[in-house]
């Protein structure tokens, strides 16, 4: 962990230092730097944005404007298992909201957030076309149909068990 001078007391890891050094002085280097940060961490944190701002001399607001312009750059991390809860009409009518709440309670995160251990993230998505299985959720590539709030703990457990065996 490095502590850099004049960076308002926050610290970044060695990978970030490497990335910043690579793109310092490169014309238009902020784009390449953001790509590497996105690939390395899965998102671009506020701290990393500030670090790049300081090292590459690009105002933080400009960096923020760039990140939010391009679809590939993300401000929010995604979990290893990204839970996508369908909020299309059919699923909504069949109680998708209650299912989402069950996930929120079980994982202690809100929609658009990731759990502290980085395992699970929760997002609501538009119709995934599985209306016959409403309410439907997708976790990475697995589709779960007719999900009820009671089923949620078991579903989460499946993935936790998967992690434990690794």
């Amino acid at each position, binding site marked *: 962990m490095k502590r850099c001078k004049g960076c308002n007391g926050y610290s970044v890891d060695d990978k970030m230092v490497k990335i910043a050094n690579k793109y310092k002085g490169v*014309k*238009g*280097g*902020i*784009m*390449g730097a*953001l*790509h590497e940060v996105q690939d390395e961490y899965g998102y671009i944190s506020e701290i990393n944005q500030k670090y790049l701002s300081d090292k590459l001399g*690009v105002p933080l607001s*400009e960096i923020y*404007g*760039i990140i939010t*312009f*391009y*679809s*590939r*750059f993300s401000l929010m991390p995604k979990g290893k298992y990204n839970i996508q809860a369908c909020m299309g*009409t*059919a*699923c909504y*009518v*069949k109680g998708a909201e209650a299912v989402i709440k069950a996930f929120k309670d079980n994982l202690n995160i809100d929609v658009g957030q990731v759990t502290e251990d980085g395992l699970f993230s929760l997002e609501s998505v538009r119709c995934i076309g599985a*209306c*016959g299985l*409403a309410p439907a959720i997708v976790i990475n590539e697995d589709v779960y149909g007719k999900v009820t709030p009671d089923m949620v703990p078991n579903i989460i457990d499946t993935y936790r068990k998967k992690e434990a065996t690794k």
Partner: protein
Amino acid sequence: MKKTVQDIENIRTQTKLSMKNIRIMVCAGTGCTSSKSQKIINNISKILKEKNAEGISVEKTGCFGFCAKGPIVVIDPMEIFYEQVKPEDANEIVEATLNNKVVERLMAKENDKFVERWHELNFYNKQKRIALKNCGYINPENIDEYIAVDGYKALEKVLLEYSQDDVVKIISDSGLRGRGGAGFPTGKKWLFAKQVEGNIKYVCCNADEGDPGAFMDRSILEGDPHSVLEAMAIAGYTIGAKQGYIYIRAEYPIAVHRLKIAIKQAKDYGLLGKNILGTGFDFDIELRLGAGAFVCGEETALMNSIEGKRGEPNPRPPYPAVKGLFAKPTLLNNVETYANVPKIILNGSKWYSSIGTETSKGTKVFALGGNINNVGLVEVPMGVTLREIVEDIGGGIPGGRKFKAAQIGGPSGGCIPDSLIDTKIDYESLASINSMMGSGGLIVMDDSKCMVNLAKFFLEFTVDESCGKCPPCRIGTKRMLEILTRITEGNGKEGDVELLEELASSIKKASLCGLGQTAPNPILSTIRYFRDEYEAHIKYKKCPAGECKKLMNVHIDPEKCKQCGICKKTCPVNAISGEVRQGPFKINPEICIKCGACIEKCPFKAISK
């Protein structure tokens, strides 16, 4: 090790020779890779080792274009064609090859006969592969193979024999026009960039191919990356630039990977970098990744992105040739345009201009998709008709359905209805029917497709990708989408079509860049040729093609209904009423959300829309 001209010639001769050995070429484009072509390669490689097979190698190669039948494997130099190969077929293939036999079950059958060599397939009959010439023949990760097929010979010729004006003349006389969509004469573009004074100039390659359904440039970069590098170096020499940038989508990881390898190999040989081939000419190429913004395919937006900014376009003039990347004179061309350059230099402008039509010379690569049997990548001479592409090359419409329209040019293009299916594919002919060439995406629609929904699909894409700088595009396309959405959901009003037309024509005139200027095209052309469909949606709240969900009237045929109750259980909104064996079930149209789940689940196919 920097190579001299003689070194390169030696490599050329040697590799040409070694390429006469048996080579098992496995397509390693993105499509086939996702169908496990890498596993095929691994398996074959393992078996060849086990059998100590001498004189046979297995290699990855570029796209053959026949994606409908992928993964493709070709045994060279016999050109034996195998389709839909699985990793498990590896042993059989090796066995057959070792014994000078073929694996019939993997071969294509046409007119009840097996077709042995891939060029004999109907699919390739009317094609002419120039930009795609090396795809399928060489291993894109081996520079020696590129050199063997006369790669870097054009660069050598240019550096040693031609002046900048000579090159401009050849490219101009060839009639090559920009393949990115606009069709601007390439020779003229190079001339403008050359004429501007300046010590520092740039050559850029637009590899930000973003049209949904288009993968021409991706295939070229995955299958023959050196052709682009060589062309850029030639362009650099011609206009007086020492630095090139390839702006490529990050969503093309295989292409990026192949380009990185190619650049390194070229640099190692001294074919890029300082003092190329000892001529004193310096030229280097760097990659810059796109980050998920379709608008960065626009010239000035692309340059802004390379400069580390939001990808918002600038008004022109000043044109990039005068003031482009980093405010310097810049030449930007599309991948496919560049891929043609080395061949033109080597074969001459007369050769190229003898192909195609009066005003559109050469060939065009198309990504054929949609409701067509032979989905894939095709390259045809300009002037071929749409009918020839759909019927002869594309193999017609599957499922016994009829051709309704083809969308050329993606979200910027217009549709071509059945009545115009004999239109020639060239820049002027397409423009005359209010369509456009575009970058090469060609989506075929059968009679089950709703044209209003198609327009809406492309407009949704445009709205998502608009950069937001100018009001006509930022707000105008959104308003058009709102009107279209209303129409497809049964809330269309009298006058909506006229409103769409008016809004569309204003957006075309007032938008800052090509994205906004062409965004209304799908709407205008579908209104022009399928106005009746729009009117049906609006006046009668009906979707003639049966695609728009909200206009579907899901209906249980009382005669066919066996009263099993499965539909009622399936319905997510309890719109179906009835009891088991107590009369036909009924759907309440007020509650029904037209999701189609019951239609799928009914075992007796009693439900339809």
